[in-house]
């Protein structure tokens, strides 16, 4: 087998692995639709090099399509069009992670600063510590740490039974 063909086979295998890592259901579909007998890294190549390239193409699309079908059955809201290609899937995943982070920031839980750190998150932890310490002094004992600390404009609040305790964000 030529080096070129070996790299194509490896690319197909890598693509499957990547897809399976992103969406586990695809991995199951890939196992069902093994494209070529003996098509495992390190095994002898098949004896039909003339049809290999179309076969690889069809197989790659079939596997992804099978995964999509499985996902569609398992998750009615699964958007097939948005993740048809492996690259799209990775991009989509990263986009959703960014959106989730933005939501976190909007909620005020923490923000990534210009150096990629989470200084506001540390500030939040200091506020929680201050609020809970104040709750202890007010006699809440073990309950001091059982109350969730919410964000408010400019700071944080713990709403206890008889007291609201505030700490400024800065």
């Amino acid at each position: 087998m030529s080096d070129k063909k070996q790299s194509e086979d490896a690319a197909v295998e890598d693509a499957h692995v990547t897809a399976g890592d992103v969406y586990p259901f695809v991995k199951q579909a890939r196992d069902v639709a093994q494209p070529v007998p003996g098509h495992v890294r390190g095994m002898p190549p098949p004896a039909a090099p003339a049809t290999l390239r179309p076969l690889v193409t069809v197989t790659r699309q079939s596997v992804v399509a099978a995964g999509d079908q499985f996902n569609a059955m398992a998750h009615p809201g699964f958007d097939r069009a948005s993740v048809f290609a492996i690259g799209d899937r990775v991009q989509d995943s990263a986009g959703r992670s960014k959106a989730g982070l933005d939501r976190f920031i909007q909620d005020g839980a923490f923000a990534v600063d210009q150096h990629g750190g989470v200084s506001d998150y540390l500030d939040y932890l200091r506020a929680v510590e201050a609020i809970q310490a104040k709750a202890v002094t007010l006699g809440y004992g073990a309950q001091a740490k059982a109350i969730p600390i919410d964000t408010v404009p400019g700071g944080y609040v713990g709403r206890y039974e008889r007291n609201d305790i505030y700490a400024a964000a800065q």
Partner: protein
Amino acid sequence: MPPPSKPAFEVHGEIRAKYNALGGAAGPLGLPMTDESPSPDGVGKFNHFERGSIYWSPRTGPMMVRGTVRDRWAASGWELGPLGYPVQDQHRMLLLGPSPLIEWCRFEHGLIAGDSRGGLPVPMALQAPAETLGRAAAPALLSYAQLGTLFGARLNAQFQADPNNVALRPGIELTGVSDWQYGFWASTPRSVGFRLRGFHDNGLAPDTNFVIDIRLRLELVWGPSFTEPGNKTLVAVLDQLNVGHDGGLALAQVYASVESGITHAFYGSSADPHDPDHPEVPSGAIYVTNVPTGANARTGEIDVLDVLVTRNGELQVLVNPLTPPQQALSAVSYTYLRQLGVQDALDDLV
């Protein structure tokens, strides 16, 4: 355990309820800067916030004060000063447009109005010598005795119109002034008490003599308005009424009839408005007089801010002490000028 690296402050009770009602940290006050603390007078409580304070006392309730008004109140000694505790949340004049900003807060014994140039108290006696600009005018007021004459005449007119052989005897006693009473949104104002005597002519039988004990609260009301109204209405709210035996032939139906007649004057027999000529008058109150405030929603000018019954039973009209927004500060005391003008109008009333 080491102390936390940042402070935390707590609010509770009535102050917490008022703070949350005003929007909490998202409202005008911002975040707490102190724990709830006892006032130096040993009676009240307070929290300071980023942009104001809430003061509570058992006789006034929790009230917000902020900005230049709070600064001037602090300069006068907070609740230990001549003004006492706030009795209403600070009011911001409703204007057409974003500026100028004029606010005022009524206290137990007076009022402070403020704009961006600072705050000034009224009546004038509460101002520092430098603030009076060397002039002095007595507060615009009706004395307790004048109020007695005013309401005695009103009740007498009602009795004269009654065909049931009842009449009031001349004279009216002043039975005292109550203190402010607790309120969450605003304290209930002081009420003034009066005692009147009357009789029912029973023909050949001895007269039935009765005594009326009545307490009234004097307040300004106004109809719905998106801006500060140019006219408000002074009303007398019935706070307490008792009609009892005062000698002669005891007839319970006479006492009940007199009490019913007076109550009817305050509540009417139909749903609101019970006074068709003055629909702004709430149930339980009677119209006393119209009060032009001089408010101009475009310029921010206003002459009359509120009324106040003092510990002596006087009805003071609290004028605006501030220089009009469009004019530079000068050697003119607007408190002086406005108090004189309002007193002329009050004199006409009696």
